[in-house]
């Protein structure tokens, strides 16, 4: 088990390196000069050059990249004298647009994204798996057909439409829930919950539709297996067959998929955050795209990638723990 984990960790480090390099190249190879964005309308060439020097953008590319990587682990100082700034570890650079250190920007909005992802994940997994199992159990019934039809339609609607309908009708017109003004859960959990409820539901609707279908098809597949027939043949009640045998076996692909989906959301749920005006990684990323705020874009892209790669690793290690065959493959 240990050699397997070590091997995977080495691969992980390699992946992270490649991820950071590609991200950095993608954004810094663009024909936009970040330095020219760092001063006002009447930027003189000298002012741009001074800022470029201050940000280290006049160095060759590989040195820029090296400095950037180094800063993540060691911190960095920008400029000297009255324009000096220190950037603490882990340093992802300075955002001119927000006039803040990138790390500070990300840590300040990260909780919103994490809570959004966790809540939505809980909702969609509960609804999706439960409905999926029921649909599989009563395959071909009116319930099954109805659920499948609803999931298909839910699947086909653009998420910005679902969000806006919920917002205008459930919040503004019918006042079932207050308008989501984010409050940290540590401050007032009740308010936090009410605020996040609709974003959770909006985000979860699409995934729930997908997971209902996934669970149903997984269940049907496993229910056709020989050992289920054996279980039934030996006289186990259907409930036990489903819970103990079919569900367990059908669970693995669902878990894989769920792990990756969840990790993907941690990089920011752009559309949901935009509609509900939640300031998480997604809305910060959109703003960064609009302003070509490269230091933030690189950091968020990298962060999103890291979440997925790490989630992949965790899922794989869990598999290896369960199934010894994986380790030697």
């Amino acid at each position: 088990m240990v050699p397997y984990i070590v091997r995977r960790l080495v691969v992980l480090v390699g992946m992270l390196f490649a991820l950071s390099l590609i991200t950095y190249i993608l954004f810094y190879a663009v024909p936009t000069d970040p330095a020219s964005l760092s001063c006002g309308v009447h930027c003189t060439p000298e002012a741009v050059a001074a800022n470029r020097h201050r940000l280290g953008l006049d160095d060759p590319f590989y040195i820029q990249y090296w400095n950037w990587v180094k800063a993540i682990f060691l911190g960095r100082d920008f400029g000297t004298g009255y324009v000096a700034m220190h950037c603490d570890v882990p340093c992802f650079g300075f955002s001119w647009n927000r006039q803040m250190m990138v790390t500070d920007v990300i840590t300040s909005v990260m909780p919103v994204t994490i809570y959004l992802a966790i809540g939505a994940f809980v909702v969609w997994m509960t609804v999706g798996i439960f409905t999926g199992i029921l649909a599989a159990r009563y395959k071909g019934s009116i319930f099954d057909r109805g659920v499948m039809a609803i999931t298909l339609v839910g699947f086909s609607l653009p998420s910005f439409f679902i969000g806006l309908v919920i917002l205008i009708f459930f919040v503004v017109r019918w006042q079932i829930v207050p308008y989501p003004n984010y409050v940290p859960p540590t401050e007032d959990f009740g308010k936090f919950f009410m605020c996040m409820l609709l974003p959770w539901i909006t985000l979860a609707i699409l995934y729930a539709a997908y997971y209902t279908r996934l669970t149903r098809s997984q269940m049907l597949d496993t229910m056709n297996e020989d050992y289920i027939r054996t279980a039934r043949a030996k006289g186990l009640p259907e409930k036990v067959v489903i819970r103990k045998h079919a569900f367990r076996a059908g669970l693995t692909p669902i878990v894989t998929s769920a792990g990756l989906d969840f990790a993907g959301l941690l990089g920011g749920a752009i559309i949901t955050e935009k509609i509900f005006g939640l300031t998480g990684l997604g809305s910060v990323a959109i703003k960064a795209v609009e302003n070509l705020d490269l230091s933030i874009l690189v950091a968020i892209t990298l962060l999103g990638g890291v979440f997925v790669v790490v989630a992949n690793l965790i899922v794989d290690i869990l598999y290896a723990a369960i199934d010894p065959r994986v380790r030697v493959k």
Partner: protein
Amino acid sequence: MKKSALTRLGVGTASVALLLTAVVGNTTSSTAAGTRGGTLYVLTQGDDILHLDPQRNYTGEDMAFASAFLTRTLTQYTYNANPAKASTVIGDGATTAGTKMNGGKDWKFPIRKGMKWEDGSTVLCSEFKYGISRTFATDVIFDGPTYAISYLDIPAGDYDSGSAYPGPYTATPAEQALFNAAVQCTGKPATGEFLTIHLNQVVADFSGATTLPEFAAVKPSADTGTTYDHHLLSNGPYKIDSYVSGDHLRLVRNTNWASATDATRPAYPDVVEYDFNITPQVVTERLMADNGADSTAVSPDGIYPTYLGDVMAAGSAYSTRKIVGFDPYVSYTAINTSHITSLAKRKAIMASWPRATLRTLSGGDYAGSFADGVIKPSMGADYKPTNIWGYNTFKTTHHAAVAAVVAKKVGSVYKCGTVVRSAGYVCTAAVPAYDTVVTTPHPGALGYVVPDNGSCAVAQQILADGNITDPGSLTYDYSDKGSMITAQASAAIKAALECAGFTVTLHGIASGYYSKVLNPATQGDLSNAGWGPDWANASTVIPPLFQLGNSFDLSRYDNQAFQDKITAAMANTNRGTQAKQWQQLNADAMAAGLAVPKLFTTIQRLQGSDVKNAYIWGPYGSYPYAQLAVN
């Protein structure tokens, strides 16, 4: 920032329009009653306040907001629902609106005693001085107005700003001495300090300039340079409690602010919360629904277009909660003369502009009236109709009443559209329908009568007169925030120009609109824009817009005679003859095809039912934020 009723054009323009010249002296402002307590919410689709840093804040709504709650300026406008009265300048950080000396070349401001920063320390004269000096550090403090650089008596030099003084961060003692000579503090905090500002020319209405936060105090030890926006030290009735860009700005009471030192800010609410990034439609939906906390909410955004009819309808449920008024702005499209050098082409562009379609798209009567230049009639003596579009007179036997109304009002900028409608007829459709109408054209500066919706026939005629067979291609820059209306407006402009023979590429810019078009390298041929004066003098309109290289020069008109006229008008100390010069320059600019004027805009706002003292405050075309109370 120019914000029309429907769209936010982007960032970066100025603000203040006035009806009267500043009245110097200590006038007590009228303060409406209200109850203390509660939370005032400000809901917006915008994603942030552009700058809270006083020396960088140059957008109308943001200036109104920041000076109401956080930053005391040297002087201020009066809070009054009547725009004429609101334009009176009174003291704020200074106890008076300043004393003119040396014929208006030197100005003396007695600094108010007892003002405190949020950290408890006294606001000193030297801190006003320091604040003013920050404007010169253009590498750190950018986006703000630059009147200090233009007007202070500091020699010209080689720094980016054009001054010999580089700002407080990098100045050598010799350079700092230049600034210290121009701005002086005398007296002691205990007995009263005086701030004296020496100007390089007579500026008779300088107390208008000092209403800008550019002339507000900054405490040197609290100055964090570019990041001061987020770490602003308040000397107003509120201070920043929490500020997350893109999410919210929450202000709570500044316990060190003493109401005794401040007669104009009653500071009714306990908390002020600015909520950003709300879906545009939802802002209006929430204000209309008026539920719960939204009953104490206001919004700097216009009413979402689809609801405009419902909200504005006479006798609607919203009639007690809506406010309407004039804002200081003119919306126009600048023509980049360095790209389009042919006068005939520029005139053809103007003649084909579909102004009526654009007006309907922006909200019709609610959007404003057709503009004939960049100076608004509310500027008083500086305004004179330019007669750029020309007009027709009508004679009719059957409907003499219509003809009489039309004839009486010709020459007015409102022209036939509004006039005939007020007589119960639709102008373009109804009048020509009467067979006996005789039309007499009175051509304007373009040489032809141009109908409200432009005319590609006239445009083609102008091109033909100028012997232009292939008008060539144009690019049109506009701020594209994803609004259907803006997109359709650009499509309408494209269609109109292509009808005249141009080829048009639309260039929608999602973010940083003004910084992109102000940069010659990225500016297109035509750039949509909006501008309002900084105080009641067209010296804050014509030079910023048309003087080569000035702060909002999108037309880039390199014509010596024209530029000399601007310089002459700037130097003229006789306000009466200066007004004539501005009138002429406005007309000249239009005749030279520097810009297509679109609308003299009006605005509508809707607020929650528990918001008290709401009106459109003339100087900024905004809410009188300092006066607002909530139940």
